[in-house]
């Protein structure tokens, strides 16, 4: 698959910050921090370090 050559440039336009992604970032950051607060990463790590037999089609 060949691709056409491209020129890359940045157009100067008015910067308009959007509120929705910022709110979502905040919400999910809080969720992540809540998970860290209850030590969920340790549980995730424990699971990820072992073989999930059903996941590989055994058991």
């Amino acid at each position, binding site marked *: *698959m060949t*691709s*056409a*050559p*491209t*020129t*890359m*440039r*940045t*157009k100067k*336009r008015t*910067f*308009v*910050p*959007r509120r*929705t*992604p910022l709110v*979502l*970032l905040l*919400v*999910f*950051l*809080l*969720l*992540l*921090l*809540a*998970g*860290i607060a*209850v*030590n*969920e*990463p340790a*549980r*995730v*790590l424990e*699971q*990820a*370090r*072992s*073989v*999930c*037999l*059903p*996941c*590989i*089609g*055994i*058991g």
Partner: protein
Amino acid sequence: MERLRLWIQALWFFLSNGYWAFPVSGTLYQGPLKVLCSPGLNCYSCPAATTFCPVGSLQQLLLGVRLSLQNGQAYVGSYVVGCMGLLGTVFGRLICGWACPFGLVQDLLHRIPSPKVPIPKGLAWGKHLVLLFLVVLLPLTVLDDFGLGLPWFCKFLCPAGTLEAGLPMLLLMPDLRPAAGILYLYKLSVLALVLLWSVASFRPFCRTLCPLGAFYGLFNRVSLIRLKFDADNCTKCGACRRICPVDIRVDRSPNSGECIRCLRCCTEACQFDALAVEIAGHVWQARPVPPEQPVR
């Protein structure tokens, strides 16, 4: 741009599966990096996997949520959902196009010369149903006598797990081979079907069955990185629609949840500055050079 995308996909493939000592150690990677979330679908039971799979981990937490709450541990999946949501809010389905190991496998298979078959649009709903039922509701509600659920998606559907973990683990651990029965054969059949379908159609798993793609797709309209369509510059030539590998009407819904952000419409098709990439409010345009203006 397609070549760049391929290289970045390959880079992510090896970053997500960078533990190459497994043939010697005979085990999975056990290091601290596994606390990090893989952006794409990448089975953490793969012996080379260096990060956790968000879909697999979320199911594991949900299927044991009652027991953990009874034991006073609030493992309800907020860390995993937080990671997924942050990735989705920043990148949307750009991850599917540029950083998913199983997406790379499908892309490479689709390059095999063969008759190509479009995917009916109605099948796109499948991945939302998979996310809702196999990843969330069934692991939460169908419980055994001990109060534990099953990882339905991983156990009964995920072809990435079979390819990246099922096959290598059976090669690596001969003790497991006698335990491989009907379920293993069924999962091999699912994998074979998806791989064959990938030769004929572009990204069939991502477009019809992938729960992670369904989740990231929810963010495509609002993510920090998204497409910007300028109707004033559009000549309605249809070049963007013709080049789109996932059959989106780019001029009507440039931020459709189906778009995997391959960016071919921006970099190879539109000659009129009607399409650009918006990165946190800043517009970046990569326009194909017309034949009469060669690059110097």
